[in-house]
């Protein structure tokens, strides 16, 4: 324990660097969306970074993770290559999906990241099935399923909670409660006492924590993951947070009360982790260097993405299926 405590600032500083990398990635994703370099939709994770980082710091490389449409942070935290992710956002060769998926379908199976997802709560059912496979294959992995607060009103979420408990599966459900589903305040469309109460009603132990507190997320995740890996069955963590940006990059979030987002800056996770590190004796210059390093890395990836080739047209016809694969240029 003493040794853990001695290592704590260095360990948290590593996690902080990952948060900075996510923040820089998301800022660049947004800028390049507005510059017309990134198409489609970009859902930024700005303001929620402590959750993904605090949880993934407690996972093994072979543990699995499923995400939703706001999946960049989860991917980077799990170890996906942010350069390949940026190339994917630009739709270029070398992207995580070779330019065939884009922002909402980032995945990196080599680090157990089984995919962001464009359909709310579909990751829940996929996760419980992956957990059944883990049991069948007698592995000691676990799977983490990230979901937003908007997802808790979909049937698959509630089905999957029941399912996970019935079979006592090694699943950690993490609800990132940023309190707003797209543009609708979640509590105005949600009956009952909310997410934790729903999990508890199925007999799944649930905790609600401040998801912007990196140290608390880290500690809580360590405990829950250890319980799950020890055969304790599913757990749910509700991590309270705040989405500092709109639902997607081009959402100005005009539905918010004036000053709300500005006030939230005080509680945002990067600033809080930074304050803690300074208290532990990390110097201002070390923090500044870390920020500059993250920004420089991402700037390089953006440049790489600009320079990467577009996919060959033939790629549109590959990886559909083995049996009955499409023939390029033909209706069939």
């Amino acid at each position, binding site marked *: 324990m003493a040794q853990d405590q001695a290592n704590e600032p260095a360990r948290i500083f590593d996690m902080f660097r990952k948060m900075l990398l996510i923040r820089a990635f998301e800022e660049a994703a947004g800028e390049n969306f507005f510059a017309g370099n990134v198409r489609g939709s970009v859902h930024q994770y700005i303001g929620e970074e402590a959750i993904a980082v605090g949880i993934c710091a407690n996972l093994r490389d072979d543990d699995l993770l499923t995400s939703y449409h706001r999946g960049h942070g989860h991917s980077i935290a799990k170890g996906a290559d942010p350069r390949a992710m940026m190339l994917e956002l630009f739709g270029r060769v070398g992207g995580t999906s070779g330019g065939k998926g884009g922002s909402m379908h980032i*995945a990196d199976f080599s680090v157990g990241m089984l995919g962001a997802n464009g359909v709310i709560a579909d990751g829940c059912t996929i996760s419980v099935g992956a957990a*059944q496979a883990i049991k*069948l294959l007698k592995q000691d992995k676990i799977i983490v399923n990230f979901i937003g607060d908007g997802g808790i009103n979909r049937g698959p979420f509630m*089905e999957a909670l029941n399912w996970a408990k019935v079979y006592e599966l090694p699943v950690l459900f993490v609800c990132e409660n940023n309190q707003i589903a797209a543009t609708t305040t979640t509590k105005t469309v949600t009956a009952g006492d909310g997410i934790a109460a729903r999990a508890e009603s199925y007999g799944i132990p649930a905790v609600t924590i401040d998801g912007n507190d990196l140290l608390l997320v880290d500690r809580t995740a360590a405990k829950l993951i250890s319980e799950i890996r020890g055969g304790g069955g599913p757990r749910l963590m509700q991590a309270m947070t705040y989405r500092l940006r709109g639902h997607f990059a081009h959402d100005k979030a005009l539905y918010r009360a004036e000053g709300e987002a500005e006030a939230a800056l005080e509680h945002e996770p990067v600033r809080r982790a930074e304050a803690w590190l300074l208290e532990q004796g990390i110097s201002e210059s070390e923090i500044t260097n870390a920020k500059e390093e993250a920004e420089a890395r991402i700037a390089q990836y953006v440049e790489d993405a600009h320079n990467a080739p577009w996919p060959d047209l033939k790629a549109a016809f590959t990886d559909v299926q083995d049996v009955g694969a499409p023939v390029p240029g033909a209706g069939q």
Partner: protein
Amino acid sequence: MSEMTYAQAARLGLKEEMDRDPTVWALGEDLGFEGGMAGQYKDLQAEFGTDRIVDTPISEATIMGAAIGGALAGTRPIAEMRFSDFAMCAVDELVNQAAKARYMFGGQARVPMVARMPIGIRGGIAAQHSQSPEAWYTHVPGLVVVTPATPADNRGLLKAAIRCDDPVVYMEHKGLWGASGEVDEGDVEPLPLGVARTVCKGDDLTIVTWAAMVGVAESAAMTLRAMGISVEVIDLRTLWPWDKDAVFHSVRKTGRLLVVHEAVQIGGFGGEISAEVSEHLFEHLKGPVKRMGGARIPIPFSIPLEEAYMISAEQVAEKARSFF
């Protein structure tokens, strides 16, 4: 050879694949005690345990979604949906996830799963338990669609579906559960997916069909033969991919094509076959391609009303005679 039913042959095929590969498992409602709607899982839970023959809650979306997750995590699940009508509660998972994971993740993933969803009329189960929506899934890139018509095929095609690395929509016909047929004893290799079976040879007319209509068409062919019309009946076995070579080869010979299916004719897969043959074999055709499918009505309950929907051998023979 031994005689067994369509349901028994499917059970045999599944058992063989579960013996062969410990990563094969099935999940669905009522697989243990009931052994599936037609006994196609009978006693398999006792043999393979509750982790491999999994009794699930009535949660169709999760039966399908869990199969996808299981496939992504290194196993080969069979999602038993009981009725293709119930599988409609899980079309999102099948179409948005299973069919697309490999593509949208740039080839990182495979989804080797079987979505087993019986189709068709089986005597009085009416509008929400009798549909034949096979054409829907042929329209979805990423899916394979299989429609076995005989006991031997239900064993060999199920084995192929389980070994396939693509998600396979496996549509047994409920009206065939009790149908008997010859099945090889001992190990058999899976049947190839996308290869049709010529049920009977003929020179004057090609009938292309699948599932329960195969027997109906065969019966019509016998009637027609007695009348001097030689009919070639082709059982497609799989709708995606469909065996265009076999159909084209036959139509080049006969010059006439009738497509018969139990599913609603409008928007049915017969339209696709008709269009392909008309576009590519027009000069070989002695007349227009014809189709026979169900009326565009929900499947009714009462005996005479249900019969009004169904296609009989007599009706197929009559339609066939209209070519001459």
